């Protein structure tokens, strides 16, 4: 090894803790980049292959009942490649060994061929036999949750009749990668399952022979989907069309895309922060290294080393530290990517999902990192390279200090000399002080914007489950039913209170904008399901007019007072103009509300309801469930307590692990900045420190001067970090804002407190490490040497 390289390695070894601290910050950035982009790549590729191989449709529509011959006319819409009709129905299931009712989505499949669209992947067992109407395929996750094997059976309430269904195979479909049941927020493996059953059997059970209630299209590559959707709606509208929609609005696809967008958002926010901070740390370390090795540089040049050789020498320092970080980041990123992919494999129902180490993701991460490191330090390296040898051999002129503006304001004698030193150090290198403050505050910000997710989820739960939807059970009826049915439901065992609701599929139009939503008609004195205003107070539903969620109002560009065209998509399909009366704050979906009687009037129907919310006595749950499973009018039963538990479990599974990593990363970035800052201070002011100690200052007093600067900067960084954290949280809330759900921008004081605490602990640890060095300072040796 060449002598100069040997010197390089020894120099680095002397500051190994600093090197490690910077490499760790680099590593965090690289790891997040590799994890996020790599996982996204894996999801994207798996999704693309799965969609293609199993012909996932591109346009979807549901109707009440349309004649089969309509399919041919639909297939002739220009741009349509294939049209596939189906019968799809949600039914209440009675699963052996489970007290509460489950919901099954029965999806028809052709008996004599493979589905041309939305094909299924048979994992185990066999396909259904054409002449056996009781044979079904069950989706793998639901089967696993119940330990189902081919040969097992369960019961379903199909069109008022309890039917026994026999499982012959276990399957998966690209249509249900993210399988969330009707009205549920997150997938519930036990309580929602998809089943595939022969078309003839299902059609006959629901009186849909020679008809369909669901159609999927694939389209030609160049075709305009918007036009196709419009033509499709025109054809389907007479048949109880609830509005055709693009794949982008298909629930499973939308959730999966949302998750992939979040990964991209993460890759956009976090790595630049880490790499930016790392570049700054490298800059101060290299600058200091060049300053301490000034005379050595002069010596090297006097020996005949050129500017390029000296520049390259210090650039190698940068590349080694950044390279170490890249290696750490690769390892960490691959580990985290694998972990996250496992979480996704559990959340999404893919036939396979592996984290693939893709070369270009690694190459991109390495390139971005090294570029950031070199850009951050090029100035310092350039100055080292350009140092004229004669000048370099002479010690650098002493730093010139001046009085700070603060001191001019303060009467002499108020501030002690040690404090004065601290202030002047800060003012002497204002940019560095500002960058250090920014670095520490970014640590705080990462912590705040990470912990924010817990606050947001908790807030969501509070609003959704504790303020908005206070019922224990929601029963939806197969058909709009008379109020009398509600009274019957009220007499079921354990029911303490019952509150009906009406839900109607509509298309709302405001100017050129339109949205397909359901209007929920609430009772005037609703106490279980309530719409909430921005302050979480129940919003009164006016006797006339629409109450829109803020997101829906935003999508429609509508405000209170605006008049919307309401196109009802069911029943007699009335068309009315109704004013927006008020807005409510909702984070899930895009609901719209009306007074139930007003909605009945709009529908030109009597006092009918779509379902009822129940408040029940938990001790009689089993009896209630038993009755509900056998009640013919019940199409679906949603259990709030189970939903809340599932929601919490899903959030815990998907968030806790990743968020803990981000918390650690936030602490590491703060510690990296603070430790390096303290070490640089020690290197620069070690001599003054020794002087103070010799003059009789205690260790504590000397440490005060050394770390006071860092302390002041940290105190400045804490509120700044909270502010930046709020900004990042806002960005996350903004970038995750979809029609499906929003993240409330709520940050609790305890979150700020926690973030501040973590950073203070990181600072204290850095101070302790530096303190040990101060304790070992050789006073005599320091004083005996020339500056």
């Amino acid at each position, binding site marked *: 090894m060449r002598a100069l390289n040997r010197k390089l390695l020894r120099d680095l070894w002397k500051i190994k803790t600093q090197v490690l601290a910077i490499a760790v910050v680099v590593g965090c950035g690289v790891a997040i980049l590799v994890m996020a982009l790599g996982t996204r790549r894996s999801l994207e590729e798996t999704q693309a292959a799965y969609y293609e191989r199993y012909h996932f449709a591109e346009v979807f529509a549901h109707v009440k009942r349309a004649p089969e011959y309509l399919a041919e006319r639909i297939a002739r819409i220009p741009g349509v490649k294939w049209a596939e009709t189906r019968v799809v129905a949600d039914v209440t299931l009675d699963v052996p060994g489970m007290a509460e009712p489950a919901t099954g989505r029965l999806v028809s499949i052709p008996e004599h061929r493979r589905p041309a669209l939305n094909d299924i992947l048979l994992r185990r067992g066999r396909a259904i036999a054409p002449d056996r109407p009781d044979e079904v395929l069950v989706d793998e996750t639901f089967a696993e949750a119940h330990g189902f094997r081919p040969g097992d059976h369960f019961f379903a309430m199909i069109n008022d009749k309890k039917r026994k269904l026999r499982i012959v195979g276990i399957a998966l479909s690209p249509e249900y990668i993210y399988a969330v049941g009707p009205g549920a927020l997150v997938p519930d493996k036990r309580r929602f399952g998809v089943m595939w059953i022969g078309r003839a059997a299902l059609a006959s059970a629901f009186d849909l022979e020679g008809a369909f209630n669901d159609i999927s299209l694939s389209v030609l590559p160049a075709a305009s989907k918007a036009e196709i959707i419009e033509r499709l709606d025109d054809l389907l509208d007479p048949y109880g069309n609830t509005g055709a929609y693009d794949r982008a609005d298909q629930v499973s696809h939308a959730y999966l895309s949302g998750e992939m967008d979040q990964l991209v958002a993460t890759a956009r926010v976090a790595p630049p922060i880490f790499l930016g901070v790392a570049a700054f740390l490298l800059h101060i370390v290299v600058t200091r290294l060049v300053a301490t090795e000034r005379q050595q540089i002069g010596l090297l040049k006097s020996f005949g080393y050129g500017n390029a050789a000296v520049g390259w020498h210090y650039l190698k320092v940068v590349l080694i530290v950044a390279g170490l970080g890249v290696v750490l980041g690769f390892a960490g990123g691959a580990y985290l990517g694998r972990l996250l992919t496992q979480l996704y494999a559990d959340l999404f129902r893919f036939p396979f999902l592996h984290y693939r180490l893709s070369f270009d993701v690694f190459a991109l991460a390495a390139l971005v990192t090294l570029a950031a490191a070199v850009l951050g330090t090029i100035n310092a390296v350039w100055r080292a390279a350009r140092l004229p040898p004669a000048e370099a051999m002479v010690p650098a002129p002493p730093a010139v200090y001046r009085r700070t503006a603060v001191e001019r304001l303060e009467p002499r004698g108020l501030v002690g000399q040690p404090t004065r030193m601290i202030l002047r150090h800060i003012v002497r290198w204002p940019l560095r002080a500002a960058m250090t403050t920014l670095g520490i505050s970014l640590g705080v910000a990462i912590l705040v914007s990470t912990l924010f997710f817990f606050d947001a989820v908790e807030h969501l739960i509070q609003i959704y489950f504790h303020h908005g939807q206070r019922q224990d059970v929601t029963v939806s009826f197969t058909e709009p039913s008379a109020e009398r049915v509600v009274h019957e439901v009220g007499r079921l065992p354990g029911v303490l209170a019952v509150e009906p609701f009406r839900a109607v599929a509509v298309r709302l139009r405001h100017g050129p904008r339109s949205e397909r939503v359901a209007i929920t008609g609430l009772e005037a004195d609703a106490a279980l399901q309530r719409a909430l205003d921005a302050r979480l107070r129940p919003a009164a539903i006016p006797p006339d007019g629409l109450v829109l969620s803020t997101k829906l109002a935003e999508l429609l560009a509508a405000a209170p007072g605006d008049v919307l065209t309401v196109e009802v998509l069911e029943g007699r399909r009335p068309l009315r103009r109704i004013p927006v009366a008020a807005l409510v704050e909702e984070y899930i979906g895009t609901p719209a509300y009306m007074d139930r009687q007003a909605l009945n009037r709009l529908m030109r129907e009597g006092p009918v309801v779509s379902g009822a919310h129940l408040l029940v006595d938990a001790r009689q749950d089993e009896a209630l469930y038993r009755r509900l499973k056998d009640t013919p009018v019940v199409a679906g039963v949603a259990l709030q307590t189970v939903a809340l538990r599932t929601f919490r479990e899903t959030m815990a599974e998907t968030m806790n692990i990743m968020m803990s990593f981000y918390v650690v990363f936030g602490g590491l970035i703060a510690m990296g900045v603070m430790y390096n800052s303290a070490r640089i201070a020690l290197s620069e002011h070690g001599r003054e420190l020794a002087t103070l100690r010799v003059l009789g200052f205690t260790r504590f007093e000397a440490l005060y001067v050394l770390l006071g600067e860092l302390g002041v900067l940290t105190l400045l960084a804490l509120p700044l970090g909270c502010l930046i954290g709020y900004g990042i949280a806002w960005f996350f809330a903004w970038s995750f804002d979809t029609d499906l759900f929003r993240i409330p921008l709520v940050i609790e004081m305890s979150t700020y407190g926690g973030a501040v605490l973590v950073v203070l602990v990181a600072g204290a640890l850095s101070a302790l490490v530096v303190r040990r060095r101060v304790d070992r300072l050789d006073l*005599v040796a320091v004083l005996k040497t020339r500056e």
Partner: protein
Amino acid sequence: MASAGVSKDRSPNERPRGPQGTASGPDRPERRRAFVARALTKVYGKGEVAVHALRGVDLELFEGELAVLLGPSGSGKSTLVNIMGGLDLPTAGQVFFHDLELTAFDERALTAYRRENVGFVFQFYNLVPSLTARENVALITDIARDPIAPEEALALVGLAERLDHFPAELSGGEQQRVAVARAIAKRPEVLLCDEPTGALDSKTGVLVLEAIERVNRELGTTTAMITHNAAIAEMADRVISLADGRIAGVRENATKSPARALAW
């Protein structure tokens, strides 16, 4: 901190019995001893690389005197002064400052001793670059019990006009005089100077020596000054020569030369 050489508790005013090698002056009972060092040895390192900086030194310094410790590089004079100043501890032997046994002190007590009793002046000034001349002195007067005002201390060393200059704006000689002012502003009992003119030319050096001389005379501060420059020894009350870690001789100047008369 473990202190080597703490042993028998003898009163410092009991005369050492060693027949030879003591650095005590002529028997003048009216002079009170500020420092008494007995059988000091100091070994740095171990085994083959061990360096014997002091090899059994006995020494006394009297209150108010100006003593010059003269010797070549490596003779042990700095080690001796560092031990007297509470910066270092001997491997064996005892040092008393009045009734206090420094060699029995721990780290904290040594810091307090330096803070209250000792003023230091080093070859390389060691001013705090971020503080002005006045503030460098105030650094000490802020924590001292009965200090001289920083302005007064700087006037004493002839820098009344340079109060608000930063070290970077002062010449080497001026910086060293600020260091002297800083050292004496707390009215220390003892002023220890390690090659105070080592980095200065003769003319500037004399100005610094004049400052030290004036402090010794006007404040009565016991002063020990290390130098390898024999010319400087002429301003001392006593000249203690060291060589190879031992006291080589003690000479009393019958007539002291004033500092301004010195040249080298």
